[in-house]
């Protein structure tokens, strides 16, 4: 969260203050516990939101911090989902190992692809990520003997969490599990962006030409953050496979890539919480609108997107922080 400019503060304590855990953050995370008490009928939805928030966070790391646009990020979400789903079906149903396997497999795929990604920027990058997303989607479809194709992956069998918590119909276990994983990986992402590496990423976003002129190995940085981002997206995919006990083909689809991009833009890229807020707004809106007119709900999300981009160029969080600064100044 932004800290007021501290003129005259020692530089080290100034930089430390920039990364200090704020009261608003504590409130935010406490609020994520509310569904357990007040919305027990919505825990399955809450679990989906937490997982999508993790997916959006993974995109924000590359989009909001390193300035890498991706239209194919679902490739990693789907890879993690299939990896975790297949692992439970054929090897071992323990959820935490499955989660780690999903994240590691996806990290490897992300690392391999990062060698292509790091060489391009802007428009070429959009087309490349789009192409890679389509490619993996088609591959999963044609390998239907393994993935179940458009029927989805069947036979996913996840053991109770920690050997104790069964996957109940209401979603207590699902939401608790998703929320804890989201929180832990959020703390990890928070650490990454506040490190010297995170500072270098912001440098790439702000001015790639200057990064070369100061001797920075930008491509190596991009490969690292892309791999981290893929691992987080893979973890989110693994969570969806485990909590829903199936993997649908659309977990790799273009629509999911587009949606997660919309979420990050709605929430506000480069703010760490932007993807989280965006996922919450998007998923809640979808749940509400699709109850009224299921076919036309994209109309409303389209309208919301246009309005946010036109009037709140830094997303909902950017608008909020500007409003707060204005209000404080009075």
């Amino acid at each position, binding site marked *: 969260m932004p800290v007021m400019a501290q003129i005259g503060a020692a530089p080290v304590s100034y930089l*430390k203050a920039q990364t200090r855990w704020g009261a608003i953050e504590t409130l935010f995370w406490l609020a994520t516990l509310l569904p357990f008490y007040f919305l027990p009928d919505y825990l399955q939805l809450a679990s989906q939101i937490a997982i999508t928030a993790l997916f959006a966070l993974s995109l924000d790391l590359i989009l909001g911090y390193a300035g890498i646009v991706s239209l194919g990020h679902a490739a990693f979400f789907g890879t993690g989902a299939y990896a975790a789903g297949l692992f439970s079906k054929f090897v071992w149903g323990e959820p935490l190992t499955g989660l780690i396997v999903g994240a590691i497999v996806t990290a490897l795929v992300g690392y391999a692809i990062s060698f292509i990604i790091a060489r391009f920027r802007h428009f070429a990058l959009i087309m490349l990520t789009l192409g890679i997303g389509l490619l993996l989607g088609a591959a999963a479809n044609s390998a239907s003997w393994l993935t179940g194709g458009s029927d989805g992956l069947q036979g996913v069998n996840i053991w109770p969490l920690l050997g104790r918590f069964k996957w109940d119909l209401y979603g207590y276990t699902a939401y608790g599990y998703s929320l804890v994983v989201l929180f832990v990986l959020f703390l990890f992402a928070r650490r990454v962006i506040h*490190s010297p590496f995170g500072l270098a990423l912001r440098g790439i976003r702000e001015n790639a030409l*200057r990064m070369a002129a100061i001797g920075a190995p930008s491509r190596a*940085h991009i490969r690292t953050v892309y791999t981290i981002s893929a691992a987080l997206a893979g973890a989110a995919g693994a969570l969806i496979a485990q909590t829903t006990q199936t993997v649908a083909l659309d977990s790799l689809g273009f629509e999911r890539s587009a949606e997660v991009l919309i979420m990050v833009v709605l929430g506000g890229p480069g703010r760490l919480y932007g993807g989280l807020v965006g996922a919450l707004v998007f998923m809640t809106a979808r749940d509400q609108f699709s109850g009224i007119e299921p076919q036309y709900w994209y109309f409303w999300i389209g309208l919301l997107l246009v309005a946010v981009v036109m009037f709140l160029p830094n997303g909902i969080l950017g608008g909020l922080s500007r409003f707060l600064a204005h209000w404080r100044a009075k």
Partner: protein
Amino acid sequence: MSAPALSTRQLSKSFGSLVVARDIALELPVGARYALVGPNGAGKTTLINLMTGILTPNAGQIFLGENDITDLAPEQRVRRGLARTFQINTLFAGLNALEAVTLVVCERRGLSREFWRNVAAHKEAIDEAHDILVKLRLGEACYQATRELPYGRQRLLEIALALATRPKVLLLDEPAAGVPPEESGDIFEVVAGLSADLALLFIEHDMHVVFRFATQIIVMVGGAVFAEGSPAEIAAHPGVREVYLGTRQHA
């Protein structure tokens, strides 16, 4: 006699039939304060781009100290001590000056791959960044976002970023470009106060500034070195008056 800090041998570059650098042989000794002057299109910025590796020469060599750096990538040249600034601000607009210079110091110290520790844990790097900013009269402005800094301060930050790489040779492409004439002296005073170990080459159009701060002047015309000498020699050079100083009078 030690090797010059930076030298070029028969450096040439052309785009099709357009020759932008022709057999350029220069030597920049340690501690140099050299000015690179010449009319627009003379190839001054092209020469900097060749030296820093943005452009690849068609022929010739570039040496940093005794090492041939002709085939090195731009980043590798920076790590060996060759830094530059840009005529048009090429800054990190969304970062403040402290963050920007800390970023450069962290890159130089090899900390930038570290993603598990907080930036604030690297006190030495941050203090080094702050010292550079204070030296360049940016100490008070260092918490302000770069894009909000007054233009003159942004020009100083251009130099601060380059200095944070701890260069042996610093190439300044019109450090006071766009700064009102009454303020450009401030920028050059900062430049003149830089370490005596640093070899400096700066491009500048204002001949008052050039004669005041340069110990040696290189005049380029049409992609080639037209004349080189001390300010007194250049001032007395009849050809220079004609092609360069002469044309400037009615500009």
